[in-house]
């Protein structure tokens, strides 16, 4: 009874390296942050070596996070009109002695 879970209409989930794909998915954020205990990390690394599904998705996850951190680190400068209204509001507020 080896049915491909993808054909069964569900996301893949198999045990590789002593850990299931779904658990790997669950741990991706901690893996990226380097916050996993050594034993779990080794299991996941073994899983990623032998499970091409998770290897690929883990890579996509990591590169999306890297893109957010790199490309969206700096906030957009304020629109001039927004800036102007903020300055006006602050001038009013700063008039009043606190």
């Amino acid at each position: 009874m080896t049915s491909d879970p993808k054909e069964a209409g569900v996301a893949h989930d198999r045990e590789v390296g002593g850990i299931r794909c779904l658990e790997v998915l669950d741990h991706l954020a901690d893996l990226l942050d380097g916050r996993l205990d050594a034993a779990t990390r080794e299991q996941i690394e073994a899983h990623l070596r032998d499970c091409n599904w998770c290897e690929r998705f883990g890579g996509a996850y990591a590169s999306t996070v890297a893109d957010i951190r790199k490309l969206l680190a700096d906030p957009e400068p304020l629109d001039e009109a927004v800036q102007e209204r903020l300055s006006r509001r602050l001038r009013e507020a700063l008039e009043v002695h606190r």
Partner: protein
Amino acid sequence: MRRAARGDRDAFGALVASHQSAVFRLARALTSSEAMAEDVLQEAFVAAWRHADGFKGDSSVRTWLLAIARNKAARVQRPRAGEPTSTVPLEHLGADAGWGTDPSPEQAAALGERRDALLEAMESLSEADRAVLVLRDMEGLSGPEAAALLDVGLSALKTRLHRARLRLMAALRRGGRSDQ
């Protein structure tokens, strides 16, 4: 910052200039309209001026300002009635984000296009998802800092961040597919 706390307007002006866009970005993430975000921006800095002596220096000035903005946003943004409380199973979120599906052809997008796609995908997320991404991945706050600021526990924060990233990936895939 200490000078601003003593009522030095120039020092406060410099503080506003260096943090206004970050405060506005969080306000945009937390509120559902540009107008509300602008109110939050203004009221956050007014409050910062009035309570500058309440800055204890145990966080960065930026984090302190973001916390004020978050509190202001919580006042103007009514909690969504009927927000689904049930959580979508992780495998469904993963599947939407591309987990276990055939790889979509890699579009080697220019950095500018990639950035625009990310911003557009951000817009499609809920306030809660946007806020956690802004604080953790864009502002680079630590988990405990972001959890304190959003008034949630650390493990809830981590779950929220992971799920927000998966929803962002799903939105990016949808965006790529519906592109003309």
